[in-house]
């Protein structure tokens, strides 16, 4: 056996190795600690791991594009997606610091699972082989099933975990069946080779088309596209809110990055067909997501449906199948990670711990007594509704620009109309904060990590909005 081939370009998966090592360290540290007090160090160890993985990612960035075992690749797109995932994981860890001790005293597993889920997500973002893709998908899915049920005493949390697990396992089987059929059509599991093969010889259509359709269902579930979105509100609402924040930003980024890679590298020749399928799904996802969000009273459910709608916007960027589109999707995911995690951080400050949720009236009168918190929430809401000069505006701008330049103007128009609908429910939160009287005195909860992540997300949302070129400069698209 050729050992040199096994170790060649091992640095491609360095961030994953760092994350795995820290996950094991967290478990060991939890087992070896002497008393409860010392478990405060676990989130710090987790943060150290995430920062080390970020440093590893930055280090790879300066090296030529390389592939490890034809299974994972370190190109600009993968590195960008990895960075977004690591940012989401870091913010979620900050949010968990003061939150977790209230819901479950077993902290070692929690942080180890966060690290392992991050590992799966970053792996998925850089996978170039259907098998690696599936493996990564399962790694982070299994970790998230457990994390969403981490508030064990709370039936809602258990329910969320159960629903996510059953539906997620079902979706995974769709995914793996699709991968198997695609393998049957092309005779290889490597995305690029599938692409090369299908470009010249169209494969067995009886295997190819069902394969693509099933893969679409698998990805559609993970990024919560309508009609595969049913689990999203229940799981987002029932999961502990830091997990919701992590899930909404991390899973979306990982699944969309892999989705883009499969479409652009393995199936570019079929763009005419899947372009239309995605366009229909995008219209459905945006419209259903936004219209349902209009009627939500719970902040977390509203953000869950908004997350469905946002998946629709991102999907618009994938439809034309251009490098510009994939770059726009990645940029959108970056902005979404900041503004959505930020919004959920505000929910954490307001929520009642037993309900794992905050109703909209909890935000009433917030501006009078907690002006900074209200300001931060306003930034996130305005950014999510796409009002310039905040990050969300440029996210939407690039997405719709990619659609128009790819020849899908009508789709961009539907997207803009949807964006206008969404402004209603985002701004309603601001109206409550600034113009309504508080019904009951709310004492927001706070701890250092929470304040820090609120400050970071709010600042990033503003800075990305003010200097978008700074960020688009180092993100790169895929293909062409």
């Amino acid at each position: 056996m050729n050992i040199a081939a096994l170790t060649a370009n091992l640095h491609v998966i360095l961030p994953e190795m760092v994350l795995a090592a820290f996950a094991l360290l967290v478990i060991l540290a939890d087992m070896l600690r002497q008393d409860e007090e010392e478990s405060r160090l676990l989130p710090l160890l987790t943060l150290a791991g995430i920062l080390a993985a970020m440093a590893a990612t930055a280090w790879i960035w300066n090296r030529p594009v390389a592939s490890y075992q034809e299974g994972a690749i370190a190109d600009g797109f993968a590195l960008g997606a990895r960075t977004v995932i690591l940012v989401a994981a870091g913010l979620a860890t900050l949010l968990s610091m003061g939150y977790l001790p209230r819901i479950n005293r077993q902290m070692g597993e929690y942080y180890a699972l966060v690290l392992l889920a991050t590992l799966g997500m970053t792996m998925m973002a850089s996978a170039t082989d259907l098998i690696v893709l599936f493996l990564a998908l399962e790694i982070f899915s299994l970790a998230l099933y457990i994390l969403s049920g981490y508030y064990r005493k709370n039936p809602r949390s258990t329910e969320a975990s159960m629903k996510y697990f059953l539906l997620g396992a079902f979706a995974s089987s769709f995914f793996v069946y699709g991968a198997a059929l695609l393998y049957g059509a092309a005779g290889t599991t490597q995305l690029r080779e599938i692409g090369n093969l299908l470009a010249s010889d169209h494969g067995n259509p009886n295997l190819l088309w069902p394969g693509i359709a099933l893969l679409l269902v698998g990805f559609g579930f993970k990024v919560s596209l309508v009609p595969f979105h049913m689990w999203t509100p229940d799981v987002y609402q029932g999961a502990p809110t830091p997990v919701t924040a992590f899930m909404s930003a991390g899973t979306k980024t990982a699944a969309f990055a892999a989705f883009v890679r499969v479409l652009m590298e393995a199936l570019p020749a079929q763009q005419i067909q899947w372009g239309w399928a995605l366009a229909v799904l995008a219209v459905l996802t945006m419209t259903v997501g936004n219209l349902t969000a209009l009627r939500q009273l719970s902040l977390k459910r509203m953000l869950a449906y908004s997350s469905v709608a946002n998946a629709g916007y991102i999907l618009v960027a994938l439809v034309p199948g251009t490098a510009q589109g994939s770059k726009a999707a990645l940029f959108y995911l970056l902005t979404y990670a900041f503004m959505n995690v930020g919004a959920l951080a505000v929910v954490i400050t307001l929520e009642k711990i037993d309900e794992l949720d905050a109703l909209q009236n909890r935000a009433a009168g917030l501006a009078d007594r907690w002006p900074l918190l209200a300001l931060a929430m306003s930034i996130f809401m305005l950014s999510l509704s796409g009002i310039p000069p905040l990050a969300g505006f440029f996210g939407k701008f690039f997405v719709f620009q990619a659609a128009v330049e790819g020849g899908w103007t009508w789709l961009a128009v539907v997207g803009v109309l949807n964006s206008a609908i969404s402004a209603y429910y985002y701004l309603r939160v601001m109206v409550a904060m600034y113009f309504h009287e508080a019904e009951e005195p709310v004492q927001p909860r706070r701890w250092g990590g929470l304040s820090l992540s609120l400050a970071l997300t709010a600042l990033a949302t503003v800075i990305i909005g003010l200097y978008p070129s700074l960020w688009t400069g180092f993100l790169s698209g895929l293909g062409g």
Partner: protein
Amino acid sequence: MAIDYLPLLILIILAMGFAAIAMGLPAVLGPKLPNKQKYEPYESGIIPFADARRRFPVQYYLVAMLFVVFDIEVIFLYPWAVILNRLGLFALVEMAIFLLILLVGYVYCWKRGALDWGGQVRPGDDVVESQVVESQVEEE
């Protein structure tokens, strides 16, 4: 294309035919001398003493799962040991990492009490069953 699968079809027919003959001939020709032993689920082995559908201690499943994990470890170690000479230092390091990961898992199980066979409460396991049931009823 389809003709490639002809051997498969022949095999299926042969297998089914063989099974039918092997089951059918004894049923028609064989002498029938029933006795008590013949109606036991197993003619040899331990005689069942109760129904199989009963409650097991949950630790049984934990231990069973742990067994599978370490069983797989051995399955993985065996071929590795056979060709270790040819794989060299790299394989040694690889396997050391693999075993280290499993070792952490083992320490975890041990410390969390997964290997203790008994009804004790684990750390952090302060859920009272009745409370959970009550709150579920309330929600419904």
